[in-house]
């Protein structure tokens, strides 16, 4: 009952004209920021820090949190429509969201993303309200050793993502890991693969690599004309036809629920948040799916799960900040700065000293998620109509979008050049039959993995046994072994014990047989 009474207090704070307006502005700005590649929520919230001084401290945090979870939804719009992730957490949505769009189901993908994000937002908000303070300390059990093991499991699961053979996938993981090492080593301070080019000291930005590998390479394939991206698509007119149909809605419920819960718990981990949650959800859905071959070809699960997970993860990452005073990621770090500027020290005493702020922010998440759905669902038709733009014009517009987006990251033409380079690399790799998704995922997770692996080894005085001594780490490594060996064992079992070829899989939409490449 205490929680309900506190929520009433929170709604009392947020349901004022000023705070409702602030939440609305946060959601609109966040969605816009998410759509524009390059301009992320961290930069936007940093730019708004001086503005926050003029607002009441609760209002300023409501504004910033609205921008953060608004960006999570906005980032998926361009991922689905043009395969350019507006946000790092939306990278995984490119795989199946874009394929759904190619099959004339862009509206359904956007609708699933909107409703999934809304549901996940509500689940995460309820989780924060009821469980947050209690489980925040559990997240502290995850040190570098446990996180390195979790990320290792992630790499094993990445192998299953995308098309092409496992060896091609491994090659791409190796290349992604290697690209992630470019720049100054954070532990020793040594420069790696910098070649006296000063912008390389900071390494490649995730957005630069993602826009190049997905956006620019897609433009080059569209220019070729024989890629599926150049196909004339089947669009339906009314909003009702554009939104997810009954079968898609029913199918997505389970994925959204699992994604919400997984995203909530991964969002609690320092350094985790929305990005890791979306990857983990995709991998989990693919592993437990009865039709893993449909992933990467427009599977509803490939959109519903990750989209729910990234929103739940983004909101759950407020718990370590509000309850422990630990920023889970860069965006939350900037919000922590705003709190400190307002004279509020985040930590265990925040809920006692400033209950109106804690519960006001939580209540604003309910309101903000509702606003996002109300704002975005009617706009699905408008977003989808963008796909009617002729391919040639769309190609040059994507280039403009990517070039300015890459430049705006650091106001540097080096980033634009790097993005063009990654675009050409992505095109060449895709022409040679490689899928660039594992490359990007390995690049994103690689730097986190290296940092945690090395810290773990330093904690264990150089002994790798430290990863087996921690029960959580040992469990993750054991799971990685099971995931690696299970297909081999099951394959042999099927070959020797079961007889007869498997029945062909049928595509639900077309009714035709699905053939593996």
């Amino acid at each position, binding site marked *: 009952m205490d929680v309900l009474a506190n929520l009433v207090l929170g709604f009392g704070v947020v349901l004022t004209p000023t705070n409702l307006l602030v939440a609305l502005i946060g959601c609109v700005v966040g969605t816009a920021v998410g759509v524009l590649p390059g301009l992320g929520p961290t930069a936007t919230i940093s730019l708004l820090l001086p503005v926050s001084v003029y607002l009441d401290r609760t209002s300023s945090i409501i504004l910033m949190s609205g921008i953060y979870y608004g960006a999570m939804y906005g980032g998926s719009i361009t991922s689905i429509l043009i395969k350019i992730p507006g946000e790092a957490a939306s990278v995984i949505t490119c795989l199946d969201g874009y394929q759904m769009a190619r099959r004339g189901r862009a509206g359904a993908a956007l609708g699933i993303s909107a409703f999934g994000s809304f549901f996940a937002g509500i689940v995460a908000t309820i989780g924060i309200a009821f469980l947050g303070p209690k489980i925040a300390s559990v997240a502290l059990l995850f040190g570098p050793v446990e996180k390195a093991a979790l990320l290792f499991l992630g790499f094993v699961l990445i192998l299953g993502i995308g098309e092409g053979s496992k060896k*091609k996938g491994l090659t791409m993981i190796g290349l992604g890991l290697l690209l992630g090492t470019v720049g100054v080593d954070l532990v020793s301070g040594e420069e790696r693969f910098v070649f006296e080019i000063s912008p390389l000291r900071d390494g490649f930005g995730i957005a630069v690599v993602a826009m190049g590998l997905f956006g620019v390479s897609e433009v*080059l394939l569209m220019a070729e004309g024989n890629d599926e991206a150049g196909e004339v698509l089947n669009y339906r007119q009314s909003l009702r036809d554009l939104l997810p149909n009954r079968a898609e809605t029913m199918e997505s419920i389970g994925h959204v629920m699992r994604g919400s819960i997984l995203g909530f718990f991964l969002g609690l981990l320092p350094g985790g948040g929305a990005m890791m949650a979306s990857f983990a959800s995709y991998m989990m859905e693919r592993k437990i799916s009865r039709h893993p071959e449909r992933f990467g070809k427009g599977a509803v699960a490939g959109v519903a799960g990750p989209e729910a997970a990234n929103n739940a993860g983004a909101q759950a990452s407020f718990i370590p900040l509000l309850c422990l005073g630990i920023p889970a990621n860069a965006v939350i770090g900037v919000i922590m700065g705003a709190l400190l500027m307002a004279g509020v020290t985040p930590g265990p005493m925040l809920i006692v000293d400033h209950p109106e702020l804690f519960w006001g922010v939580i209540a604003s998440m309910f309101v903000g998620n509702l606003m996002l759905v109300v704002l975005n669902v009617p706009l699905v038709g408008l977003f989808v109509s963008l796909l009617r733009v002729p391919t040639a014009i769309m*190609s040059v517009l994507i280039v403009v979008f990517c070039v300015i987006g890459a*430049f705006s990251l650091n106001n540097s033409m080096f980033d634009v050049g790097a993005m063009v380079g990654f675009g050409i690399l992505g095109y060449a790799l895709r022409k*040679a039959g490689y899928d660039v998704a594992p490359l990007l995922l390995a690049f994103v997770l690689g730097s986190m993995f290296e940092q945690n692996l090395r810290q773990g080894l330093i904690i264990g005085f150089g002994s790798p046994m430290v990863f087996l001594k921690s029960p959580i780490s040992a469990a993750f490594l054991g799971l990685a072994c099971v995931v690696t060996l299970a297909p081999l064992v099951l394959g042999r079992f099927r070959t020797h014990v079961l007889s007869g070829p498997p029945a062909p899989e049928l595509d639900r939409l077309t009714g035709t047989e699905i053939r593996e490449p």
Partner: protein
Amino acid sequence: MLSIIGIVALAFAREFGLWSFGAPGAGLMPATAGALLLVASLLDLRIARDQRQWPTIAWRPLSYMAGLVVLVPLTPLIGLLPALAVFIFAILYFVERLALHRAAAIAGVAVAGSWLLFERLLSVPLPKPMFW
């Protein structure tokens, strides 16, 4: 090519140092990544040897690539938005064979929209021409 990158990475990793003072060195991850890249690409090469077919690249994507590559050194000379206008016009008129007035109009609208959104509204300091 990927195997060569793997070998180069391994050579550099040795220079960075795999292990120092009882702790992992800066070269540990490049060595792991390089070894993975080398082994996996060699295995893939062995399998694909019999069915190797060199991919062909059409002239249209090559034109796009050339345009993108030229865009980078052109920007410091004439500014980013004019360089993008030249890129859009050249691609639409010469490669996509759109009518002259249509290509020019699309280039103008795209650049004007970008100026409004990024430079005026979001205050992104887009590169100006050299002699501005």
